[in-house]
């Protein structure tokens, strides 16, 4: 079943043609890795799905982006409703300077949910899903800045899960972490796949190989190849993909 889709996508920043004619679709409960050298447009592409690019003043989009067959850029879409329904995890852990509890509850609170019971339940559920509950359950009031980087990133994942996203976007979620924390995040992604659909931008090819079901290779604003990860890594059909994967450029 198709969860999300991008059709004939073209993106400009002013005169710069950042994404060129991209078509991709993503299956429910799958992990898709977006790979490619820096500046290839993979992050821009990711951010189309929660309209974060709208914040850039000279951004212009052509094409259709859908999640659950809803056109994300149609006039009826309320942008904060939309962003709430799409989870996003950033490159560096970026917890708010609040308590652990308040970080996870944030998405509910800004959307008008202040009922204590609901908040408590959601915080616990999300922290459990993010495999962080056991580590922080006694310290929920502690500042989120006081836990380790890896824990912070899992907290940020929990924060994204709390609003029950339809789709989770991850922008190099492990690039700022040590190997052990990275392993934990990867394990977590594997677990999350059971209930969510995940798009993940990564620089780390091994990581893409370990965690993703599908891989899309971006190069200079174009989507060169998109296929099952195993096939991409073992038997890519495009020569540029082959060169990138084998480390000849990037």
């Amino acid at each position, binding site marked *: 079943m198709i969860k999300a889709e991008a059709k004939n996508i073209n993106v400009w920043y002013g005169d710069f043609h950042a994404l060129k004619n991209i078509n991709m679709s993503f299956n429910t409960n799958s992990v898709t890795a977006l790979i490619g050298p820096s500046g290839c447009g993979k992050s821009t592409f990711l951010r189309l799905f929660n309209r974060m690019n709208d914040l850039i003043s000279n951004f212009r989009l052509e094409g259709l982006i859908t999640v659950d067959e809803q056109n994300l850029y149609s006039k009826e879409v309320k942008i904060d*409703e939309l962003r709430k329904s799409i989870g996003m995890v950033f490159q560096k852990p970026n917890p708010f300077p609040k308590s652990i509890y308040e970080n996870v509850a944030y998405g509910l609170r*800004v959307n008008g949910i202040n009922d204590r019971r609901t908040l408590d339940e959601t915080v616990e559920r999300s922290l459990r899903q993010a495999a962080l509950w056991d580590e922080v359950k006694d310290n929920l009031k502690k500042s989120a800045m006081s836990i380790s980087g890896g824990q912070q990133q899992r907290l940020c994942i929990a924060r994204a899960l709390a609003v029950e996203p339809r789709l989770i976007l991850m922008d190099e979620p492990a690039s700022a972490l040590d190997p052990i924390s990275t392993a934990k995040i990867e394990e977590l992604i594997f677990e999350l796949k059971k209930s969510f659909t995940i798009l993940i931008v990564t620089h780390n090819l091994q990581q893409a190989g370990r965690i993703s079901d599908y891989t899309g290779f971006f190069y200079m604003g174009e989507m060169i190849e998109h296929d099952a990860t195993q096939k991409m890594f073992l038997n890519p059909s495009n020569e540029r993909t082959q060169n990138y994967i084998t480390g000849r450029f990037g």
Partner: protein
Amino acid sequence: MTKKRLIQKIVFTTFGLISLMVVGILFAILGFIAIRGLHVVNWEFLTSMPEDGMTKGGIFPAIVGTGSLVLGSMVFAFPIGVLSGIYTHEYLKDSWFKRFIRMMTNNLSGIPSIVFGLFGMALFVNYLSFGDSILAGSLTLGLLTLPVVIRTTEEALKSVDDTLRMGSYALGATKLQTIRRVVLPVAYPNIITGLILSIGRVSGETAPILFTVAAYFLPKLPSSLSDQVMALPYHLYVLATSGTNMEQSRPMAYGTAFVLIAIVLIINTAASLLRRYLNKKVKMD
């Protein structure tokens, strides 16, 4: 529109209107003084002595006085301030000493200008017996500007990319060579513009010169550093509050206020044009 969107719209519109009001305040002040002062200001006003109990004539001695005070204070504050900024930013490592010097500089910049006036009177006028003089006034104003110059210099140096310094060291350059050949050439446009902006501040200060140099009425030009002078801001104060004939000296007051504002406008514009020009030049070289 959802409720929270609506709230946001209302709040941001209010904030926009408030910002507009701040702009309005500026233009009210500028406009008011320009409308009443512009027709007073002509060549004769700028170049002749005040006459008839300061109700006629011009403000020439006050212009010369303010000019000499600006010059005097800059001769003092520029070198010391720039050197001090270089030392604290380039030489001092993050230590208690650096924090102490920073703290003292911040303290100095927080001291009200009238306290500088008291201090200048006690130290320069009385203790060192300079008397009410350009020298005493310039030194007082110079000390007042010093923190501004230091901070400007530090900010300018901070904006120089550290990799440039590393690159220079890697080629075997000493610290001094690195500063002179790499850091300063990149930083100097911002230093210069900061210095020019501080001239604007000095030329408008009144409280520090009240008891160190400013003369109520002195229709002649200074001939040495130990002379008293009239100064534009003090002259405006006198005209506005304690002239011999306030109604008749009003036009003179508007004219003087206009000249003071014009100085600030010219200096701010000149500084930003110069910054743009010099920065472009630095990039081209």
